[in-house]
Every structure is written in C-alpha cells, then in structure tokens.
C-alpha cells in the first residue's frame, strides 16, 4: 500500500481537545508525524495583562479544564513571590489538600479519557464515577465543580467546612478499595496489556532532551518531582515518596505511564491523610495583601501533567506588566513524532492518550 498522509483532527476522538496530528502511514505503520497546535489559543497571557492581579485566578482556572486548581496555585505562588506575601500555615495545608484532590481528579479524568482510546468505555465511566467523588469534595469549600477559583493571593478563599475531614476520609477509603478492584479490570487484563505494553517507548534521557516532564518522565524511572526538588507549600513536612516506574531499563511505555499515575493517585491519598493529621488551626488568609507590585517573579510547580512555569513582571501598577506561562504539554505534544514513528495506526490513541493531553494549557 502506498504511503499517505492522514489528518487526525482538529475534531477527532484521539485529540482530547483541538489540535491536528498529521500522520504519514504506510499501510497501518506510522512513517512520519506532524503535530499542529494553536487551535485553542485564547491569549490568556495578554488578557491577564489587562486585569488586576487577583482577577487572573479566573483565567488560570481556565487554563486546564481537568486540573484548574494546580494552575491557579502556581500563578498565585508567583504573585506571592512578586508581592512578598506570607501565607499562613493553615492556608498552606488547605492548599496542599486541594492540590492533591485536584491531582486525583485530574489523573482520574485522564484515566477515564484514556480507556475509550483503547475501546474500553466501561473503564471511562468507572474512573469518571470516582472523579465525581473528588469533584464533590472540591465543591464543598470552593462552591464549584470544575473551575474552583479557590486559591487567593495570600491564602485561600475560605476555611474547610465542618465535617470535611470525615467526608474526605470516607471517600478516600472507598476510592482505595475501588482502585484495588480496578487492578483486575486493567492491569491484569491481557488485552489491556497487549495494547499498552511495548508501545510508545522513549527513554529517560530522550524525555529530558525533549522537555517531557511530570508523570511521563517519572514513568521512565527518573526520580524528578518539583514537589521535592523545588519544594513549595508544606510538601517537605509530609511523609510521602516520589514514585517511579519503568518498562525496562530506563525507558517507559504506555503501561508504565498508566501505572505511574495509578501510583501517584495512591501517593496523593497518603499526602491528603497526612495533611489532615498535621494541619494546625489559624487564619486562612494573609492579613496584608497589596494590590500593586513591581519587580519580577518566577515559580515552577509540579502540575498533574508536568512542570508548570509562571513568570511575572510587575511595573508598580495593579496589573501584571508581562505574564508568561510555560505549559508542560506543549513540549510533550511537540515531541510526538519521536515516539510515534514505527508503531501502528491503532497505537496512536494509545500513545497520545497515555501522555495525558490537555489542550487548554497547551495553547493557552
């Protein structure tokens, strides 16, 4: 069969958003690939330069629909560095709890979106059913199910409501039980393993060269997590480990990238439990939050998908002079020709799904 280009997207079930993947196939084998991004560009950075600092949390919420709090948090961290605001300890604990709940919801969203890519609708509904549990939890203090707008410069919007800890503990217990149950449905299912093993391989050094971060890098066995290495909030006071997985010596495949996220979910459960144990009483908002700022600030955080970088320049007014966002998925998607070549057409959803695409943050 002759070689031909197939254009997958912008509307295609594989894309999980709006982008185009042009693949050159020889029969069913991928010879070449060419990603095209930018369909969802909303000029968030420029919009942010026209709004006051505190208003921009609504924009950062909308950077990634699956993981809005983590993005808002990394923006808020950068602004706090710019304004030199001290955050109360209790607020830091609440932030960590919200971040880890959001990470759980985001990973569950990813797992749910990954299963239809492999032709497994039931898996999607199972994972999304569990995501609902965490959305219910996130809704309790923030008042919304998707765009929480909970992080504030200098603290959090409000203290955790009464009975939040008990509710969280109940849901975490149910969730852990269900994760163990799902092992039979996915990890111990032969066809799932056939679809994900030895597919979309790249090594750890390749990943670092291509700018792939986050769980995709830890899936190669590289122990790199900004929560430890450039620590923020109270992650260093909490008992937890950075988890890694490997498919073989130093490389990852779709299955190891699936497993690393399952491991991270279990780790997040641990962090949340420990946070509740160690959380002190106190205010949730800094007493003094300026409106104007000058200078520059740079913060990087461990988003659910990789390293989220925020750079802010203030010129003394109440709006940022320049705001730069670096999203982890932009580099990861841009590198896709490297890890798509040589596999089959049917592997494209399996590979592109396994790196956890979120186009909202990619195109900004």
């Amino acid at each position, binding site marked *: 069969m002759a070689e*031909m280009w197939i254009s997958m997207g912008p509307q295609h079930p594989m894309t999980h958003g709006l982008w185009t993947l042009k693949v050159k196939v020889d029969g069913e084998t991928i010879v070449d690939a060419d990603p095209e991004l930018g369909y969802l560009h909303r000029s968030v950075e420029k919009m942010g330069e026209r709004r006051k600092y505190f208003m921009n949390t609504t924009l950062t919420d909308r950077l990634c629909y699956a993981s809005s709090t983590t993005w808002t948090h990394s923006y808020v961290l950068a602004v706090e560095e710019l304004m030199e605001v001290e955050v109360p300890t209790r607020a830091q604990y609440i932030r960590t709890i919200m971040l880890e709940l959001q990470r759980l919801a985001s990973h569950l969203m990813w797992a749910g979106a990954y299963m239809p890519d492999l*032709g497994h*609708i039931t898996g999607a509904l199972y994972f999304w059913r569990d995501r609902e549990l965490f959305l219910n939890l996130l809704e309790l203090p923030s008042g919304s199910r998707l765009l929480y707008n909970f992080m504030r410069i200098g603290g959090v919007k409000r203290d955790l409501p009464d009975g939040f800890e008990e509710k969280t503990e109940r849901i975490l217990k149910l969730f852990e039980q269900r994760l163990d149950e799902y092992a039979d449905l996915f990890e111990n299912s032969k*066809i799932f393993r056939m*679809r994900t093993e030895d597919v979309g391989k790249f090594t750890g050094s390749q990943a670092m060269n291509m700018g792939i971060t986050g769980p995709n890098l830890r899936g190669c066995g590289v122990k790199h997590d900004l929560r430890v290495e450039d620590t923020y909030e109270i992650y260093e006071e909490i008992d937890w480990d950075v988890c890694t997985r490997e498919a073989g010596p130093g490389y990852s495949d779709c299955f190891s990238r699936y497993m690393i996220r399952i491991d991270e979910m279990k780790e997040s459960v641990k962090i949340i439990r420990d946070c509740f144990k160690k959380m002190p009483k106190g205010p949730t908002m800094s007493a003094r939050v300026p409106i104007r700022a000058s200078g520059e600030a740079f913060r990087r955080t461990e988003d659910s998908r990789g390293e989220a970088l925020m750079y802010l320049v203030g010129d003394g007014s109440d709006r940022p002079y320049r705001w730069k966002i670096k999203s982890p998925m932009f580099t990861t998607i841009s590198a896709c020709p490297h890890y798509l070549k040589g596999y*089959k*057409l049917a592997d494209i959803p399996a590979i592109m799904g396994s790196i956890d695409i979120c186009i909202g943050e990619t195109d900004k």
Partner: protein
Amino acid sequence: MTLFGLCKTMAELTADMFIVPVLRFQRNIFPPFSYPAGDLADWFASEGGIVTLAWIYAVNIAFAVGMTNLILVIHLERKIAARIQDRRGPMLSFRAFRELGEDLAGEAPTWRFKGNYSGIGIIQNMADGIKAITKELIIPNKADKFLFSMGPIIFISSSVFLLVLFPLSDRFAASAAPAGLMVIMAAFSIAPIGVLTSGWASNNKYSMIGGMRSAAQLMSYEIPLLLSMAGVFLLAGSYNPVDIVEQQREATWLFGLPMWNFIPQFIGFIVFMICILAEVERVPFDLPEAEAELVEGWTTEYSGIRYMLFLAAEYIRGFAGAAVATILFLGGWAGPWPVPPEIWFLLKVYLIIIFWIFIRWSVPRIRTDQILELGWKKLLPLSLINILIVIFMVEIYPYFADIVSLPEVF
C-alpha cells in the same frame, strides 16, 4: 406440526377463502383482464401456488421472530451495559413519547411519573428509529454515489437474509436446506464485501482503512472459523442443522449426560467462539469501526437510516452468530422436555449473547496486527488440531476398537 406445515395450512385457507375467489370474481367482472387473473387463480389453486404462498408466510414469520429478537437484543445490550457501568440505561422513552404527544397537542409538558420509572425504556429503539428516519441522508460530494448506496444494500440484505436461514427447532424452520450451515456461512461472508464497498466509496481515508481492516479480518478469520466447523460436520456427517442437533441429542457421555459438541471438541468450540466474535465484529474485534482512531471506520460518512440499519444489521449478525454457535456446539434446541425446544434454543442463544455483552464491556479493543497474528498463528493450528481429534474419534478409534474390542466411548 412444523412451521412449514402450519404455513401451508394457512396458505390453503387463504387461497381457498380469499385469493382464488377474489381473482375469479375479478375475471367475471372485468373480462378484459380475465386471462391473467384467471391464470393466477388457477395457479393459486394448484400445489405450486400454495407452496409458494406457504414459503412467503414462513419467511415472514421467521423474519418477524428475528426482528423481535433484534429489538430484545439491543435493549438487553443497553440495559446490561448500563448496569455494568453503574448507570440506568434507557428509562424514560415512554415518557418521551408522551411528551411528544403533549407537545403536538399544544399542551405544556409536565413531568408526571414520580418515583418509579422502571420498565418503560424498552421502546427506546422505536424512538431511535424515528430519529434516524427523520435525519438527512448525506452523500459526500466526491463519493462514488452508486457504490455508496450499494454498500448498505449488500451489508444489510445479507444480514437480514441470515435471519431466515437458521431453524429455531426441527419444526420451526423457514429453510430446510440440506447444506444449511454452509449457506449461513456463505451469507455471513457476503457482508465484508459490503463493508469494503462502503469503505472505498465513501472517499474517506478513515473509511477506506476500516474497509481494508474488514477485508484483512475476513481473510484471517474465515479459515479457522470454517475449519473449526469442519469437526462438527465430520461428527454429524451432514451440513444440515437438524442433523447436527439430532447427532448431539443422541450422543451421551458419562452417566448418560448429553455430550454436546463443546465437550469433545472443546478446542474447536473456543476457536469458533473467537472467530465468530471476529466475524460479527464485536469488541474486542471491532477493528473496522474503531471509534478511537478511525472515527467509526467504514460507517463514518453514513447518516440517518443507513447508519441505523448498519447498527441493526450488526446486531442481526450477532444474533445469527450466536444461533450458529448454539446449533454447532451447544446442542441446538436439545433440552429437557417440559420447555419447548424453541425456548431452549433461544435461551442458549441469549446466554451466548449475554456472555458477549459482558465481554464487550469488559475488555479493550485488540490491535490490527495482533488480531491477524492471533488468527493465523494461533487459531489456525488449533482448529487443525481439533480436526485431528475429531478424525481420531470418528475414524481411528472405532477402527481399532473393532480390532481389539475397546469400549465404545465416542
């Protein structure tokens, strides 16, 4: 009383009481048309006319039974899938019809059923049918229009044809062809041609790849499928479903238990079940319409009632496939007395279908190269081993048993 006998009685009655008198009456009233009408009347009074009429009745009854089963199977799939996925499935379709009526009558819609909504989702199929009929039939601009229309015709007609080919019991059969199962498998193999045609005529790369996958799947699965069936044919010595079921009904095992074919030919049974699953294109073998990478594959460009009929035809094929598996390996309509054989047959068919539904919603889809590898490298040798076992049972063991007077096991 067989189905055909019943139909013949009905045909005689209708011919005697209605058709022949009316035609004769026409001849008397309108002399100019007397010749054809009179000729027809004579023909309907003769044996040939009555047999033809009886065939038409029989085929229609079998078709109606098949279609009723189709609606049940679709509803069953929806409900079981919903239960597996912790959902409810169709619940309010009756409600929707009522709303539609109220809307048409100009009344404000009201929500009336509070509390119990169960059991009124079964007419969801009708609602879907109405929706599909009212949709526009889109033909892409650069498509091959003739083949684009021919594809659904080939696929759907060959699938509907399947419904009248298999008997529900030795008495409830519209067709009693001596090579019945061969005809069924021939009808099964027509459909991929329709798939290939529609895939190519759509002028869409996704559709074309879907069509090619369908062809590749056909090539790799027809051979082990037919080879696994060959064992059954050897054992029964016939292609006729009735003979095959009779053979299984008579064969006994330890303690006089019935020895249906899936016990001696377990390998053949496994191979057949995998292959028939691939033949009817259900998950995990629904590669031609993989929605993740091929956007429903060869059905991408079809819309409205054509798409709906594609889906319906796939369920018909699934039902027919389960029926063939029942006839070949699960003893067909054989079963204890008080339950009629037709019910036994349908029970077994539905058991297989429910098993398939559970498989469908439990596993992901297999990749193209893996499916071909499975077909050629695993299933083909296994089906050959199955044939060897059957040959040993049918030919070699009785031969030596005669010589050294071994007990008659098989």
